[in-house]
């Protein structure tokens, strides 16, 4: 596997981590009830979306530059 492929795998895992942290923050917020965790959840879900968008753009750009065949 090349660095391009491994990078996409890495972004997938990072996205899953961001989603996991988001769900975790929601759970803590429901049990402890501190607004800081709600902020954490929003930040995590936004990060997950940013990572997904970046991953798609990266894949497209690599393909356009013929660095991914």
């Amino acid at each position: 596997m090349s660095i391009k492929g491994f990078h996409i795998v890495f972004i997938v895992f990072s996205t899953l981590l961001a989603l996991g942290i988001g769900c975790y923050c929601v759970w803590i917020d429901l049990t402890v009830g501190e607004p800081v965790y709600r902020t954490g959840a929003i930040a995590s879900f936004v990060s997950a979306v940013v990572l997904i968008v970046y991953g798609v753009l990266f894949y497209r750009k690599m393909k356009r530059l013929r660095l991914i065949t």
Partner: protein
Amino acid sequence: MEIPYTVSARRDTGLWNAKVGIWLFLASEVMLFGGLFSAYIFLRLDAGPGDWPHGLLNVPVGTGNTAILIASSVTVVLAWAALKMRDLTKYRIYMAITILCGVAFLVVKLAYEWPQKFDHFGAFIKEDALGKYEQYLGNKHLLEKGLPPRKEITGHLHNKEALKDPNIKEYEIALDPINADPTNPAMDRPHFWPKPATEKIATIEKEDVQYANMFLPKHSAYFASYFTITGLHGAHVLGGVLVFCYMMLPASTRIYRHNPEHLANRVEVAGLFWHFVDLVWIFVFPLFYLL
């Protein structure tokens, strides 16, 4: 003499040599970290209720470090792509950012997170003395809520000499919020947003303590695993940073002038290693900081 297959692919493997080498190396690394992760998970599963420390790490700092490593993975790929596009200036910029990210991660880990732990104290109370320290443990309240009991009192040790001097019969601890106000429902779950130690001082008699120490590897299986895995991971980050620094030296520029593809291949191999190191952290972070 020219070393063969540093740029072109071998006919038999279809890969250039260094790529085969790095994947063999990464396979051995998977076994190394896999063994350590397995050990941690089995230790955790085997721990009795209340025996496994919870919420002792600084989650916001860990999250920041995770973001730094993810950003560095992006910049290392951009550095490689810049080389492929034959843009040496952009390559240098992205590589410098990658190095800065690696250094920032290590500084946070070694100059902030670890020393903070070395300065923290915990005392595990003997089973038969748990009732005596109920005001700091709040186990009746936890029992009513069906939560695991607390057995450890944590905070900042005022009389550090008590750790070594057998003539001092008690520990004086400036309590963490969780032990200062244990029946507060907000303390039922670990606090992941760091709260400083309170000014409430608890006096714990040594004869009631099963085991007490600063948050060092010998404190518990949790901290032994934490320092081993994060230390080994930190060593890998340092290794990666040193390799990237080498790739910024004039020697690498000479390679680029001679054959740009040769340097691009070197950066790709180092980048694969860097991605692996970052991927390990993606598992370390939730395992130690959150679960």
